[in-house]
């Protein structure tokens, strides 16, 4: 199955890229948008049929490498097979 790890800067952590995107959007006339945050999504193929077991493995991978818990939070979801 395929896992998606969504990684976002924690609330309160400065996000210079999000801020730059927000400024650009405002300059383009999108005056109603604000609080833009930029994160990343990592797609991972995992050899398992058990979602619970897969989640545990992806959690470990996220804690060890994919996310830096000092500045980032993550969420794991699974994509349905086509």
């Amino acid at each position, binding site marked *: 199955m395929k896992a998606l790890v969504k990684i976002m800067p924690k609330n309160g952590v400065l996000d210079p*890229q999000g801020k730059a995107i927000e400024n650009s959007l405002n300059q383009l006339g999108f005056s109603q948008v604000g609080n833009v945050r930029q994160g990343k999504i990592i797609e991972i193929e995992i050899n398992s049929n058990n979602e619970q077991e897969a989640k545990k493995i992806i959690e470990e991978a996220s804690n060890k490498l994919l996310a*830096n818990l000092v500045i980032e939070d993550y969420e794991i979801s699974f994509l349905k097979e086509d």
Partner: protein
Amino acid sequence: MNISVIVFPGSNCDRDIALSLKKFSNKDPLMVWHQDHSLPESDLIVLPGGFSYGDYLRCGSMAANSPIMKEVVKSANNGSTVIGICNGFQILTESGLLPGTLIQNQGLSFICKNTPLKVENDSSFFTHNYKKDDVINIPIAHNEGNYYASDDVVKDIEDNELVAFRYCDQDGEINNKTNPNGSIKNIAGILNKNGNVLGMMPHPERAADSIIGLNDGEKFFTSIIESLQ
């Protein structure tokens, strides 16, 4: 005296730091490849600047998980002396040897310039030849040098006098205007609690020879070499 410089794919200050260490110690450091699983017996381990693994994912994150870093962490926890400069500092925070992390510069640009630093700690293994409040000029060259840690971690660092250097101006003023990258409390370099690990964004190896116009980094190297003797 054995000094090991760890070389990652993308390190680009490894030879500069080796040259500076040789100049002050009269001994060639050992260059150790990131894929090695054992570390030569070392009195000092150096993680050099550069763009290890292309800065993929987060600066220093891949390098922190390379085979040699397991040995470096083990060795540091047993009391070996470790220095991380620039990308090396990022690797030290990613590997958990130093608290906090380094995020993108507040102004979003890569900054490459000589920067005044205030010496905050003049009793460490690495800085004892400076005097507290000395203002020294050392180059920085980074895109992710914005030191960040939670409030309680920053308080812990300050309470234990673990800040080695702060960004300032030529008069030693420390404020937002003299902060090049947005680092919390203008922090440019920190020590761990045991005093055997130092991480810093500025490059003393680029300021250790008057032939290139800057020698304020010399006392950094003489401090270290004297401590090792």
